[in-house]
């Protein structure tokens, strides 16, 4: 089950965040900062998965954006990687060669497209 989806740029600013469970606002900020710090410090060679507290984090870097997805322990990590790729392809198709700036103000469309993927 998906717990959250984050899009973060290289400086660590959150461009998009969608939580699928209720998490209080302060906790969100601290968790995000922690996870982002860990993701940014990984280099090219390391794994795309991490374990954080009691759930798993799957992330992938596309140009200057990090796509971070938090899932619970029963989820298939490789299929989440496929899901992330699918999101990227959808954005690409919609925005015509998407870049980071496209993502920030227009997140209404983003939500609609994510939901249509079926998760």
């Amino acid at each position, binding site marked *: 089950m998906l717990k959250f989806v984050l899009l973060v740029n290289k400086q660590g600013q959150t461009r998009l965040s969608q939580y699928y469970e209720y998490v209080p606002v302060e906790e969100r900020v601290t968790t995000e900062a922690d996870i982002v710090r860990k993701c940014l410090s990984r280099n090219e060679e390391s794994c795309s998965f991490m374990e954080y507290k009691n759930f798993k984090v799957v992330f992938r870097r596309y140009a200057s954006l990090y796509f971070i997805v938090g899932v619970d322990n029963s989820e298939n990590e490789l*299929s989440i990687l496929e899901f992330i790729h699918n999101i990227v392809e959808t954005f690409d198709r919609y925005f015509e060669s998407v870049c980071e700036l496209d993502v920030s103000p227009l997140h209404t469309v983003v939500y609609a497209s994510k939901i249509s993927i079926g998760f």
Partner: protein
Amino acid sequence: MAKLLYIHMLGYPAHFGQMETLKLIASPRFSDKRLGYLGAMMLLDERQDIHILITNCMKNDMHHQVQYVVGLALCALGSICSEEMSRDLSGEVEKLLKSSNPYIVRKAALCAARIVRKVPDLMEVFVPTTRQLLSEKNHAVLLTGICLVTEMCTVNPDSLQHFRRFLPNLVRMLKNLIMAGYSPEHDVHGISDPFLQVRVLRLMRMLGKGDEDTSEMMNDILAQVATNTDSSKNVGHSILYETVLTIMDIQSESGLRVLAVNILGRFLSNSDRNVRYVALNTLLRTVSVDYNAVQRHRSTILDCLKESDVSIRRRALELSFALVNKNNIRTIMKEVLAFLDVAEPEFKSFIATNSLVAAEKHSPNKRWHIDTVLTVLIKAGSYMQEELVFTIIAMLSQTDQLHGYHTQRLYVALTNDISQQPLVQVAIWAVGEYGDLLVTGQVENEIGGGEEEEEEEEGRREVVQVTEDEVLDVLERVLQSPQSSPATRQYTLNSVMKLSSRFSTSLPRIKAMVSSYGNNMDMELQQRAVEYCAIFSKHDNMRKVA
């Protein structure tokens, strides 16, 4: 409003926007509604009472003619459903599930899944419609339908029995997906609709767990998926991974399990790090079930210890320890000890504890056991826990023939480095107990068949012969070093005392050393010193007996 949402996303409080969202939702324009629902999804939660006000708006919107509006309402309900709202609106959702428009059915199914997760009692409302959902042609509807069923099974294990009847449908679905040719709308890198395949496999896993008959029905199709899937890309890998997980969890036949472990073995030699990580993780879970099959991949696992990625190394380490047995312990321990040199501190204590346990259970002979324990002590001494010191001491005292040998080695280690507390403690104890062996240079070898080969391998160890003074020098250094903990000093004082009965020529020096601690600040040391002095003075005549 959009800006407000952005601010909220960054983490600042934005609850003053809630009334605005309500106004937006009620407006007839679509873009306003969209923004309003989005705001509602992000800003409202169960604790506020405002969300009840939306319920009416949502009800009206669900009967709207434009399908997108209906979709919006359903989305919002899915995200923020509270108990009361769910009860009110579940009837509407159920009606929409039966609608002919696939777009609406999709959204309704997802919404139903969320409601079921939140309020399990409402499950009965949706069960009859699932049958229809599962026989749809539209992949998206199928996907959401399976989501709904999976959710129901997670929430309520009794429903598993009910859904097992649908297994032939699922099998047929999977078969179609694999056999069917290229279909452009569902294709991802050459595999048709991997998301659906993965979901179906997961549902089959839940249905087959613990049930013989269902598992039997699945055997064929699982074997087919495993062999036919093209695994050159990540997509194929993810499907194979899900298949392996399913095979492991259901009561599958042994041939299928061997197939699964072989797939994992192939993953292990894949160049993609993620795949290797996933394989190691799964192997860790299956090692308790199917030990022998995993043994075959032992050498690959040991190679993974040299990976640059931390998570892979940790998994490989745990797996190696799980695989240890009498036959392979030497090879495994050699690799592990080599790894100990380069490992990070948090690994070291894990390795130390586990190596000792493994050595205790499976060591081929006593000498090897002691060698390994001493090597671990020397390399990772400061990361070991206190209790292990006692275990080691107990073990050393039980191996009678090797007292001289291990005292020698510990003495040499002690002279090299007195900063690692557990090492120092064990060494001091050994020196105290068997100091006479040290001085006379006696090293007895354990007698046993096949030992000659091992000795030739390790080469002759130098037999160290020291004088009593040198030994006392070392002990004095430990006593006075600022790095020694109070426990270590106590050990040392004890040892010095024991040596007084083993050493023949150094009695005055020992007495001087002990009495100098008679006025020490540390209570424990002072007490011991004073008592020992008393023994010296009053009971010297018992020396010959002791």
